[in-house]
């Protein structure tokens, strides 16, 4: 299971970085989302991988580390809010600049033609 999780995180990070390096805001946003999925998974397993163990003391013989679960919840909420802000900003930038390139040197055309 360790190998499977490790490969998933690696794959998500790789795809995220690849998309981040694209020139259009939509791809960059997808890349950031993938990167944050990878990060969330990584935080989730930072307390160690345990199968069939509860997070509440006394509910089962073994128990999982509850702190990473609290951390990942915070990270998910914050990541979601930040992505929402980025989406709005990207739409605004598309409207203002007339194109959706992240780092374009071409002069802005009014109205998006």
């Amino acid at each position, binding site marked *: 299971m360790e190998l499977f999780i490790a490969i998933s995180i690696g794959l998500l990070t790789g795809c995220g970085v690849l998309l981040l390096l694209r020139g259009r805001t939509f791809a960059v946003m997808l890349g950031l989302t993938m990167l944050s999925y990878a990060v969330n998974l990584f935080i989730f397993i930072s307390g160690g991988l345990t199968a069939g163990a509860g997070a509440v003391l006394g509910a089962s013989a073994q128990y999982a580390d509850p702190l990473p679960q609290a951390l990942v919840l915070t990270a998910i909420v914050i990541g979601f809010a*930040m992505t929402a802000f980025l989406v709005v900003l990207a739409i605004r930038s598309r409207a203002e600049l007339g194109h959706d390139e992240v780092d374009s040197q071409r002069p802005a055309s009014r109205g998006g033609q």
Partner: protein
Amino acid sequence: MQHLVILPILMPTLFAVLLLLQPLSGAVRTRRWLSLFAMLVNFLVASLLLWQQTNVPAQHYLLGNWAEPFGILLVADQLSVFFVWLTTLLSLAIALHSCGGDDEKGSYFHPLLHFLLMGLNGAFLTGDLFNLFVFFEVLLISSYGLMVHGGGKKRIQAALHYVILNLVGSALFLLALALLYAMLGSLHMADMAQRITMLQPAQLLAVQAAAGLLLIVFGLKAALLPLHFWLPAAYAHANPSVAAMFAVMTKVGVYSLIRVFGLLFGASAGALSGYGETLLWWGGLITMLLATVMVLAAVDLKRLAAALVLLSAGTLLAALGSGDAQVKAAALLYAIHSSWIGAVWYLLSDQIARQRGGVGDRLVPGPKMQHAPLLGWLFALSALVVIGMPPFSGFVAKLWLIQGLSTLEHGMVLVVMLLLSSLAVLVTMSRAGSVLFWRALPHTKTAPALNTASLSAIVLLLVSGVGLVVFGQWWTQFCADAIAQLQVALGGLK
């Protein structure tokens, strides 16, 4: 007072919410007065906290009263209250300056400013690494809002870069946090510092990787050389009041480096002791070199101000990389001086640009300014402070840095760089001043009258800078104690 520690976080939150609610969000006048009043109260509380924490051991404020090292805590030691104080004074000046009209160029300027202050104060006061991340996000989301304040094409594009870069930075921060938690089993900073001494040799590499990630994150905030490229564009395109407030944002990165690296990779960290110092030293020096070139090449006042912020960030990072307690203490004094004077330059360049019509703040001969004598004096004064001429705060801070560095064997490089960059600033300032004020075209441009609120903000920051010199003995003692206390904090937790 025990609960004073949490007030610098609670009060900006409360006032920000109040400013969003109906009776106060309506009229411009009411909003401005409440915002100014709130900033004044924040400043008084921060001053009280500064006074209370002078020469006493660090106070640990346990949120939810969980025993250490469980639960989240706030730490008020001399280092954190020092940064809280300098930030609240700066935001008081910014709120005052924005009342000159900047706050009405978009909506929600004052609430966002208060939320930003909450995030900044929280980041300074927290003693928990994950909580530091949370407060980073609070201050970042407010800064995103402020960054686009007023709108406009260039601003939106600069904001897009700023947001994407910082989102990547946050992802890296989380990776580092998770890795550190996996290796050390704690996120309480003082506790982590103890656990780091008990690491297995096999775990060292993972902790080093996490530390490297943290270095990238804080370096991005502090504008360390390969990660600095967002700063000039973002600061030059932001609204002047906002850019002036951002002068303290690089200091958050510097503070985090002092706090996190000073605690985790301090003298007792064994194999990891002094991690990243060489990188900071050389990175800071090259940042200074680049900023010096940018100062010389500046074509307008805003770019000059951005180069000055970058220069101060480079100086601070190199000083941290020296690894010497006296140099670090001098760097603290330099941090407070450079935050204020950096802000003054943004505010002043805006005032000058408004008087010059179409020419703006570009360094070309323009129409004669109506209020040239007053602005000229302010310009000359600010230039003297930033160059480091006696008897101003820049002189004291730089002199102390040089004194500390001259006792180190490798310190001469930074001394030379510091003097060279000051010379470059002197040359550029003389050129800019003579072009702006002496080589003016014969006709006078009818410009809007100078705004009292905006001017008094500039004067407030300059006078506070003079205060650093007048009470120099007290401040130098305070900075030295703050660094000494950071070392003691390691032994504080059982």
